[in-house]
């Protein structure tokens, strides 16, 4: 590309990203989506752009630039690696964004589901993927991972099994059909589902990652198909992604919560099946949990889901120097009359908001 062409491209990109950039707490926002199973049987002609726009259609508009110019897209029928793969497609979108200075003052990235895995890969390899010049401009203040699939999901393993001719029973086949909307068959391209197998995901850029706080939002709600998929996912899950992944746990274990002293429904009590703080990947911190929010409600305009803030060791917090903001945790407790007056911890009125609004209320 000639010099003047490059200059024009940068000018256009600068114009596109400098007007009314979506911001969260004063930082420009990037969004990256999750896995779209339908791409496995219908190769999108636009690298998934239209699907991605539709994906975020009902997400809070204040977190999207006009024309969705801050929405990174990819086709799910590609794997992360390889020529023409997701990493190359996302890198080609990041290049003009970063050249425009969009992240010079640090961005906040919001991921959903597989977007967690893709962005972890991009950031861990940003120098080799983007070159040091652009990599230095890829400054990220924090990442909000909604239903993060960075630890993989057992559904993906079962799907890749069938594609490779594994003879699973009707229960597995029906679960995958209900989840994906089509029958998995021998020989179809697994796309990014290959990367979503726990064994593969947990060997993808989990170490040596940049010190960017990854704020995890995890849930255990029911999609319409949840009644068939829950049975094949380890521990509790949001119908697609298990808590071991959404919490950011280093073990692919059966978990009931992200916190040892807080149930996912907000009940303040000891939880045996939960990762300890040293059992989380580096810089991964559970932030919000919801018992009732299903996987694809995170990025949608769905309300009606109670949420809890994943504060741990509240007693220690209340008496520590960390309590610098005069948030008295006890003030935000509920003694539930419907549950023997046990102590619950809620984000007030979260059920009147969608997830985007809760993020905004929490960060602004």
């Amino acid at each position: 590309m000639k010099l003047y062409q490059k200059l024009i491209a940068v000018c256009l990109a600068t114009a596109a990203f400098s007007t009314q950039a979506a911001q969260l707490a004063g930082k420009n926002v990037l969004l990256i989506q999750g896995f779209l199973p339908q791409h496995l049987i219908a190769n999108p002609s636009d690298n998934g752009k239209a699907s991605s726009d539709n994906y975020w259609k009902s997400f809070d508009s204040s977190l999207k630039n006009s024309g969705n110019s801050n929405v990174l897209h990819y086709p799910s029928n590609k794997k992360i690696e390889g020529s023409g793969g997701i990493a190359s497609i996302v890198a080609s979108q990041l290049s003009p964004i970063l050249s425009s200075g969009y992240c010079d003052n640090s961005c906040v990235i919001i991921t959903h589901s597989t977007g967690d895995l893709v962005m972890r890969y991009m950031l861990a390899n940003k120098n080799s993927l983007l070159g040091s010049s652009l990599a230095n401009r890829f400054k990220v203040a924090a990442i909000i991972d909604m239903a993060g699939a960075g630890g993989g999901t057992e559904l993906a393993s079962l799907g890749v099994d069938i594609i490779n001719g594994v003879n699973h029973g009707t229960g597995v086949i029906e679960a995958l059909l209900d989840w994906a909307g089509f029958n998995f068959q021998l020989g179809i391209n697994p796309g990014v589902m290959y990367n979503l197998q726990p064994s593969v995901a947990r060997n993808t850029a989990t170490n040596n990652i940049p010190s960017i706080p990854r704020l995890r939002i995890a849930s255990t709600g029911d999609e319409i198909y949840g009644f068939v998929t829950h049975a094949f996912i380890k521990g509790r899950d949001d119908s697609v992604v298990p808590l071991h992944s959404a919490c950011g746990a280093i073990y692919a274990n059966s978990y009931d919560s992200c916190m040892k002293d807080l149930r996912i429904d907000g009940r303040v009590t000891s939880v045996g099946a939960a990762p300890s703080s040293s059992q989380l990947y580096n810089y991964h911190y559970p932030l919000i949990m919801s018992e009732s929010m299903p996987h694809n409600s995170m990025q949608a305009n769905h309300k009606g889901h109670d949420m809890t803030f994943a504060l741990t060791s509240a007693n220690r917090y209340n008496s520590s120097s960390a309590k610098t903001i005069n948030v008295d945790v006890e003030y935000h407790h509920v003694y539930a009359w419907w549950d023997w007056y046990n102590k619950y911890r809620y984000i007030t009125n979260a059920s009147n908001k969608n997830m985007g609004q809760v993020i905004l209320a929490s960060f602004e």
Partner: protein
Amino acid sequence: MNKKASWSLVIGVPLLLTIFLLNFFEEESSPPGISSNLTDQSFGKSNETSDLSLESFVQASALENDMQVEVMEKDEQAPFFEAETKARLIQIADTFSEDIQYPEYSKPIRNKDELQKYLPNQSVASSLDLDVKKDNSPSISIKSSKLQYFRGEEIIGEAAISNLTNDDIVSVSARLVTSGNIVAETEGRRIGASDTFLVSFEPDSLDVPPKVTELRLIANFNVEGRRYEIGTPVKYVNVVASIDYVADAQVNDTFLEVPVYLTTSQLGYHQISANLYNAETGRALVHLSAYKDVLVEKDFIVLKAHIAALKVAGHEGPYFLDDLTLTRMPSPPRFITEFGTVPDEKITLNGYPFSDYRDEPYIDEQAQERLEFLSKLGGER
């Protein structure tokens, strides 16, 4: 959560009091100032310390009629009404400030869980309950000894079945496939008297096309004539680089520096990682990693252990390096991660007294900015 327990309203005050007292003693050391009179729409106050009592519960019922007024009053008193997440954000900021005391490339290992993070090339078992409707259903699983193998290596896995209710006769076979096509088959060998079977594929038995790097190890369980299957991914890759040797460790400023020499056939960014161990006790101390744009076939990358991380470990040496990895990082136009071979044996390293280092805290400017951002997020509105 079940809210339909309206019966609680008619049980009576004495029972409520009993329940409360039981609950009170169950709670883990409740802090002073426990709030009362709460529903999911209104909050009690803690700064006006009042022990929970029968009176407070009666008041709670009475206050429901005045809920709207109550919410408004409490909103004024609670600056984080509807934004309680800020309490967690400030706690995260506190934890993050501890985490960034050490470089990303020199992280202390304090316990076996933290070591688990840094053990490379681990496979995760795939498992499946044979009857998901039953508790304690028989379950099958398959796990390879690692995820990524080099061409020419033996591929090994363990297939297991659990929760069999009687003396069912079980046999196991296994196959390696790529895109559904079989490249090798084998029979499983039971390990002792257990229900675990070893499956292995000698390199000579593998017929893997040169460009294929993704295989699937599939175990087939025959239980009293009924067949069940489960698979797990395996990567089967070429060697593109190798670690030639590791030079002596030297103290340089705040770091213990370990030069690692390598040869590569694919120039570009390479990354090396390893764990530093106490040579006397074998305890893991520090995880190290480093990357560099390698521009010549023979080059070196320096692993650096920061004094702050070494002091957490509290050991001045001698050390050994283990769990090494060498990867060529993905880059245009192929966008693939490639792998290099590392020494099989542990590498002994000299240590130095901590007094030989410049003892200064590690500060990462960008991480500090992120910390300030987190702190600001949790800040008062």
